[in-house]
């Protein structure tokens, strides 16, 4: 907030002739300079965000360096990196990353979840966007239907699919048996790999439509004359897609990627409602792991350490994308 304070006093200093009275008159008339008005309009927003979004991050980092079981939050004892050490466990880094339990398992689950779901959603979303990028009868209802999975809360979707994937009476099993793909009902949510697969399937089902709409905006901003020119040059549809659509869609693709990657990395409601993280932690994502650590085992110190690590990874992902995407466009 230093800059807003500075600009406010700077603006006042520019006008030394204006006495107290004069200044009062000016404020009563509400005749601010552009800069004063900007400060007045932005101060509430910026202070609100500093208090509710930035301060907590700082507090989490501090908490991660202290003991902090919920019942003895005061006084907290400084323990340095002890919480991080117990999260890490013991053993060589690569070995922990590949085989470690607890935090490492959750990290693997979240990474697999993100790396598999986001690209698949992107491809399906692009296909959907190309379908929707034209006028046809019933488009309004088709679009509403396609948006349903996105509009329904994740955790409610999770409950719905938990029933559909039910190992004995689930409709998914029924359809697969009727189609002759499997002979007997399969307990999807009771097998580690199948449960993770089911979770991936559900998130892809849910968010491809969201992807599609963001990409649709990009498609619609591509001027028609570019396609006309390409057609005149005899470019095939495929060629037009490759040489006109894709390059011009790149900024939107990156926005779509960043808007999906960070939420995917922070998945919580889906594993919570679908499997509770099981079987055998096979679907315990990082945030679910951290939530259990903090609010079930009441270990605020280690929970904060895990949250700090999650923040660092999320920021690294954001930087990676913004580094490729960033083109400031501010007047």
């Amino acid at each position, binding site marked *: 907030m230093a*800059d*807003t304070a500075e*600009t406010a006093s700077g603006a006042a200093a520019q006008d030394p002739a204006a006495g107290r009275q004069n200044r009062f008159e000016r404020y009563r008339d*509400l*005749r*601010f300079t*552009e800069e004063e*008005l*900007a*400060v007045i309009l*932005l101060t509430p*927003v*910026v202070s609100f*965000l500093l208090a*509710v*979004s930035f301060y*907590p*991050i700082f*507090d989490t980092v501090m908490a991660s360096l202290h003991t902090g079981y919920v019942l003895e939050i005061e006084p907290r004892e400084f323990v340095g990196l002890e919480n991080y050490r117990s999260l890490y466990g013991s053993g060589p880094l690569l070995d922990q990353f590949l085989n470690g339990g607890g935090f490492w398992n959750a990290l693997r689950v979240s990474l697999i979840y993100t790396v598999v779901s986001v690209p698949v959603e992107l491809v399906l979303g692009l296909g959907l966007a190309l*379908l929707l990028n034209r006028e046809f009868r019933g488009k*309004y209802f088709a*679009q*509403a*239907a396609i*948006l*349903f*999975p996105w*509009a*329904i809360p994740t*955790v*409610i*979707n*999770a409950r719905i699919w938990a*029933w559909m994937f039910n190992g*004995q*009476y689930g*409709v998914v099993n029924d359809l697969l048996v009727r189609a002759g793909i499997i002979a007997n009902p399969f307990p999807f949510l009771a097998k580690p790999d199948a449960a993770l697969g089911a979770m991936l399937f559900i998130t892809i*089902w849910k968010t491809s439509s969201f992807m599609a*709409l*963001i990409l649709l*905006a*990009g498609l*619609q*901003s591509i001027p028609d004359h570019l396609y006309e020119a390409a057609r005149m040059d005899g470019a*095939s549809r*495929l060629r037009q*897609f490759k040489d006109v659509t894709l390059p011009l869609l790149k900024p*939107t693709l990156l*926005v779509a990627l960043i808007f999906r990657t*960070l939420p995917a990395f922070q998945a919580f*409601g889906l594993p919570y409602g679908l499997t509770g993280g099981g079987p055998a932690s096979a679907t315990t994502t990082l945030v679910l792991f951290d*939530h259990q650590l903090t609010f079930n085992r009441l270990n*605020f110190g280690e*929970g904060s350490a895990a*949250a700090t690590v*999650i*923040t660092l990874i*999320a920021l690294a992902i954001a930087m990676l994308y913004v580094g490729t995407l960033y083109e400031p466009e*501010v*007047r």
Partner: protein
Amino acid sequence: MATSDRDRGFELETFQWVGKKVGFYGSILIIALVSVFPILWMLITSLKQPGNVVQFPVQYVPQDPTLENYRAALEQAPFLRYLFNSFVVASGTAILDVFLGSLAGYALSRLRFRFKLPVLLLILGTAMLPFIARLIPLFSLARSWGLLNSYLGLIIPYAAFQLPFAVWIFQAYFKELPDSLEEAGLMDGLSRVGVLFRIILPVSAPAMATAAIIVFIYAWNEFLFALTFMTEDSMRTITVGIALYQGEFQYPWGTISAAVFMSVIPLILFMLFFQRKVVEGLTATGKA
């Protein structure tokens, strides 16, 4: 999908045209069906007699449809109360974000001032911060300020989390307005504040609706904070109510389906009425 993208270098014959139409509408139909099937399945399950819910092979048309599951669900948990709680929290969040977002969006798109880029990046940057890292301190704060189990305890964090999107929607909208709007107002002797409140905000109703709807859906759907902050049953939002609902019997899938279907009715209506706005809001985020 494949047919629609095929090369058009040669003359279209009628059968190809028909084939394309069938292929196109066929794929749209299949996609729409896959999208709505789970909700449809909840409706079907919820109408079955309790005994018919758990049988294999599965019944696709309920025999002797009944509303028994709805009665049981409403008796076992206060779902209407949950819906009301969600409504209060989501509306409060939307109102707060429209107010703060429009002011900030105006400043960022139409006023000249120093440090504009850092301020914009600061606001948008908060959208990148993980929720879990904000959850633990905000939980402690809410507890010490007595904001657990209160509507305000959820409205404040939700409003902060969605504010960057609201600001983005407004600044994108304001940027498209012609400069002559403000010039005319200033020439008529209005102050800058007057221009904002008498000219700019009244014409920004479309952006307000878009921002409000996107924020409303977010707040309605949020789970992590709602689960952690609302520990009393009577204060739970609908997402938490459904997620924690266990039912009384061993296989309560009939009543769960009824509860789930009731909980999505408002969303179904919302999507049918406001779909255009929802799409606008999402596409606004896509305009980089």
